[in-house]
């Protein structure tokens, strides 16, 4: 039972304030990441609409989630859900591809053609020990009913996702690019 104590107004304000600050902290953190992070653009494979707690969303399947066995780095004993640092490098054609994967963040500065993304281990497959990882960039939430519309677009055209990456490997979706045109550009708030 709630006790009517002297400081109950203070206590209620403290609860509301603490919860608001927790929410605000996530928002500020995201805004910082989106504003200051390095921008990279990754290709996306066909997607399908699903519905969950947070409403309709489309699954973005990123080809960079597959790390071939030939890429140097950690292979043995990786547990599902474990954190991995994946180095992406841009090739001559301008496409990003995994260049290394490891438990520890790699040394060396990121550059225009080299970024490090924090990922989570999903599974290892095949004798070549190909890794399948998740970057936390796989869900794009859309207004109710818009999922199908977007899906049709993705089937026919080249879709890319614009991502902001900070120095610690955190990443956030900035928006979608369809046929080189920025659509669904995300306002900061």
């Amino acid at each position, binding site marked *: *039972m*709630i006790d009517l104590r002297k400081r109950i107004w203070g206590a209620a304000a403290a609860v509301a304030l603490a919860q608001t600050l927790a929410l605000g902290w996530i928002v500020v953190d995201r805004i910082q990441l989106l504003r200051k992070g390095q921008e990279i653009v990754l290709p996306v494979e066909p997607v399908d609409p699903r519905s969950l707690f947070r409403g309709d969303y489309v699954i973005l399947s990123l080809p960079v989630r597959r790390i071939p066995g030939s890429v140097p780095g950690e292979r043995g004993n990786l547990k599902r859900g474990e954190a991995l640092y994946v180095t992406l490098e841009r090739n001559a054609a301008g496409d990003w591809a995994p260049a290394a994967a490891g438990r520890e963040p790699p040394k060396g500065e990121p550059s225009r053609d080299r970024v490090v993304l924090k990922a989570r281990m999903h599974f290892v497959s095949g004798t070549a020990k190909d890794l399948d990882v998740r970057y936390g960039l796989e869900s794009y939430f859309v207004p109710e009913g818009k999922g199908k519309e977007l899906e049709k677009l993705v089937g026919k055209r080249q879709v890319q996702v614009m991502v902001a990456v900070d120095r610690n490997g955190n990443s956030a979706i900035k928006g979608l690019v369809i046929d080189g045109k920025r659509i669904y550009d995300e306002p900061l708030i």
Partner: protein
Amino acid sequence: MLTSQNRLRGDLERWIAKGWVTPGGAEAIRAELAARRGPGLAGTLAVLAAVLLGFSAMSFVAANWQGLSKLMRLLLLGAGLWGAYGLAVALAARGLQRFAEAAVLAGVAIFGASIMLISQMYHIEGNPPEAVLLWALGALLAGVLLRSVTALTAAAGLALLWSAWMMTLGGSVHFAFLPLWAAIALAFHWLGAASGLHISLATLAGWLITGVVALAIDRGIYTGYTTHCAVLSLIGTAGVVGAAMVADRMPRLRAAAAVAAGYASLVAFWGLWMLQLLEPRADLVRLIVLAAITLAMLVALVAWGWRSGQRALVWLGYAGFSIEILFLYFRTLGTLLNTSLFFLVASLIVTCLAALALRLHRHGQSTPETRP
């Protein structure tokens, strides 16, 4: 709640007749019961209303409605959050405790909806259970600072959801649950909430069971489960034995120990049942041994329930016994010869146990002061 009040009304008549309670005292007790009943129902409805409001907030978020900008939606939920806690204080000031509890619950629900809105706004896929952890921490904070049992109950449920989700994703035991669980249990104790013991133990039992089920699924149902289920049973059995020892040595804690024994036995039997359910049919000897252990433990539980006057434990034991027998009945319908052999052995065991139960029953009747 209503039934216990009705029983108390009946008891009051008897107590007046026996001269234990004065008619004046009985009148005062009845008046207080009557005063409690009205707001009790209204308060319960208010809690249900808060739950509905919470789901309304969550579906509002899920709709991702474009009629309001993201910022406006966030501000709307923020205003709802502050409004709910403000309302809780205003209601508590008027003595409407359960309404205030409902308002706190609404605040906690809006906090959860806000987390979902933000992760939707920024397409944060991340690790979804972590959002549930943040929600649980917010509920715990509200429970402690506002001394709200309802908020603590929500925190316990969310903590279990967080950990169960982690275990399902990771396929390993998630020990990080325990400190959070301990903090919530401590908060219940600090508030002196009677329901806290049940909620704490139920969530702990739920965590143990979910953990073993997650492990069993991860390792493959028919290969890696045995040790885990056996450990689950041993933990439960240790809990029952520990509770019995506490009850014997510290009479003050006897009621609490019986509650603990109830949940611990649930854990123990869950492990035993999983072992028996997942047992490949060929290994009949092992199944018989497991069934014998289960039945013996159930009889011991019933016996202790009688001896210590804990009716709930007796019923738990009877229910478990019926389930076990029924399970054996269906389980042994394999080959006819095996079935026959199994029923012969099972019937001998059950006959012995029945004789034992009869003796214990008589023992219970001969000492009426310890009967439940």
